[in-house]
């Protein structure tokens, strides 16, 4: 037994024990112990148990996300400071300052690395158990808690005539057409669920600042590469493993959906959508009390009534005006009343074409006076 197997042993044991419990329970309520469906349901049950165990960690993260609202103004400043600086080292400098900010306010919205790493032996343990069923059946052995008879039932179980442990490459002695159809459908389901949770859902839950970073672009590329990797490796996966993976991805998808709808990242598209839904119901935006929100709306109204209304204008004109006016241009009082104008302080002396940004997410009320543009012009050239 090598080192790797020694570490995996307890995880394999747990996996086989959970499978045994589910199989016995389903048999007890009158299901056929040798039926493929009983075993498929046991695998689904196992997946659900595994994912349920990670819920406390997930909830811990949700709770720590709430503290983020407190540091929103400072985060917006930080984002404005690094706006347009998209090279890797600058993004790292921003990440470093961001981390110092979290520490200062004793908040940390990140999930931490250990749970992800801990999931790996669980998955490998499960994979080894499921992948080992066929071999164990041939050798007439049991796998840990599951005895030889159960392993035989497991191995002989079929789904529409397709053996549970047949793969696309080795369809076994069952119904080959059935195996091919089921395996292909599962590989596609597995890939699509993964793609949706990564691309559709996670894409919405990313702040505009993160979207500029090279890491994000790399991540987007990987999201397209992984389906290909899955499709290729999928031909070697037994149907039983594919079922586990698909159910697990479905769970992640649901969990992501719930989190993004209820607890979106500040400054992301998901947060804007949530605030729109809340506005429709007459609720204040996330993280603000009703009074705060009303005060802001009132202030905006007073400002509009007081005199010239701030006309919406293009970024180009804003820059021209800002250059002309330097000091005397309006300082937005509340910061978010006139979106866009406050944002462009850093951008005005930059020739680089800016990435189009939706500014409503990050108010970025810069306390810096316009006189500062002299020094920022210096630093650019």
């Amino acid at each position: 037994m090598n080192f790797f197997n020694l570490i995996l042993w307890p995880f394999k044991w747990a996996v086989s024990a959970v499978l045994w419990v589910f199989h016995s329970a389903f048999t007890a309520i009158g299901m056929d112990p040798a039926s493929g469906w009983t075993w498929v349901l046991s695998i689904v049950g196992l997946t659900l148990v595994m994912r349920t165990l990670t819920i406390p960690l997930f909830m811990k993260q949700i709770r720590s996300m709430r503290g983020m609202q407190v540091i929103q103004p400072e985060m917006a400043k930080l984002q404005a400071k690094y706006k347009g600086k998209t090279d890797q080292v600058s993004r790292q400098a921003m990440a470093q300052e961001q981390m110092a900010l979290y520490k200062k306010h004793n908040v940390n919205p990140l999930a931490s690395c250990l749970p992800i790493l801990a999931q790996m032996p669980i998955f490998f343990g499960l994979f080894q158990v499921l992948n080992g069923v066929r071999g164990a059946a041939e050798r007439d052995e049991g796998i840990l808690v599951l005895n030889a008879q159960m392993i035989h039932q497991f191995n002989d179980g079929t789904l529409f005539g397709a053996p549970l442990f047949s793969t696309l490459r080795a369809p076994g002695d069952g119904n080959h057409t059935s195996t091919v159809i089921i395996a292909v459908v599962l590989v596609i389901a597995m890939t699509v669920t993964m793609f949706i949770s990564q691309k559709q859902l996670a894409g919405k839950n990313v702040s505009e600042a993160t979207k500029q970073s090279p890491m994000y672009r790399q991540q987007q590329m990987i999201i397209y590469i992984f389906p290909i990797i899955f499709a290729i490796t999928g031909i070697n996966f037994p149907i039983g493993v594919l079922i586990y993976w698909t159910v697990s991805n479905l769970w992640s998808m649901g969990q992501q959906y719930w989190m993004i709808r209820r607890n979106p990242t500040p400054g992301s598209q998901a947060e804007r959508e949530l605030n729109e839904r809340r506005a429709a119901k007459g609720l204040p935006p996330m993280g603000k009390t009703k009074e705060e929100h009303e005060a802001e709306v009132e202030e905006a109204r007073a400002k509009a009534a007081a005199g010239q209304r701030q006309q919406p204008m293009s970024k180009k004109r804003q820059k021209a005006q800002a250059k002309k006016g330097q000091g005397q241009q309006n300082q937005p009082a509340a910061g978010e009343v006139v979106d866009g104008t406050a944002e462009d302080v850093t951008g005005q002396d930059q020739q680089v074409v800016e990435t189009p940004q939706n500014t409503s997410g990050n108010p970025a009320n810069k306390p810096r006076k316009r006189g500062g543009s002299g020094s920022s012009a210096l630093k650019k050239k």
Partner: protein
Amino acid sequence: MTEPRHHHGVAGRQHESSQDLFDAAPSEFVHPNNAFQILWLLPQNLLIAGLKMYRALVSPLYGDVCKHFPTCSAYGLESLTRHGALRGLGLTVRRLLRCHPWAAGGIDRVPDGGRPFTSVEQLPKIVLLNHPTPEDRARLLASFAPAASSSPADHTTRQSSPAEPQVS
């Protein structure tokens, strides 16, 4: 008001050179000088290669997860690069054990020491990423210098050298 603006200025000047500095930076791998070293450095270089692959392929899938700066994988890569296979691995494992959901997180750097570097240009890519500001790099390089040398002098020579060619 002056304090943050000054800081902004430094970061801005840094921006012009940081990408070039990063592009020109050497890789993390340790280059052997003789046949014996090829074998001796093999574990370190293999671990570095593995971690680089993990960072390229697996890390992006999870998005931002780590509670620290540098992230666990960046910390691991830097500690393997600077401190070698054995100590690097030990440091990485200990960091991972620190990165749990109840940890406070924050800035947590690889300890000083290990493979010495004398100039910014020598710093491998991961060390640059983990020391993103000129101040961070100056501090790191000063830690390698003999105790007698004063760090401010060090700071200025290094500051001017990478920045100069970049001034348009």
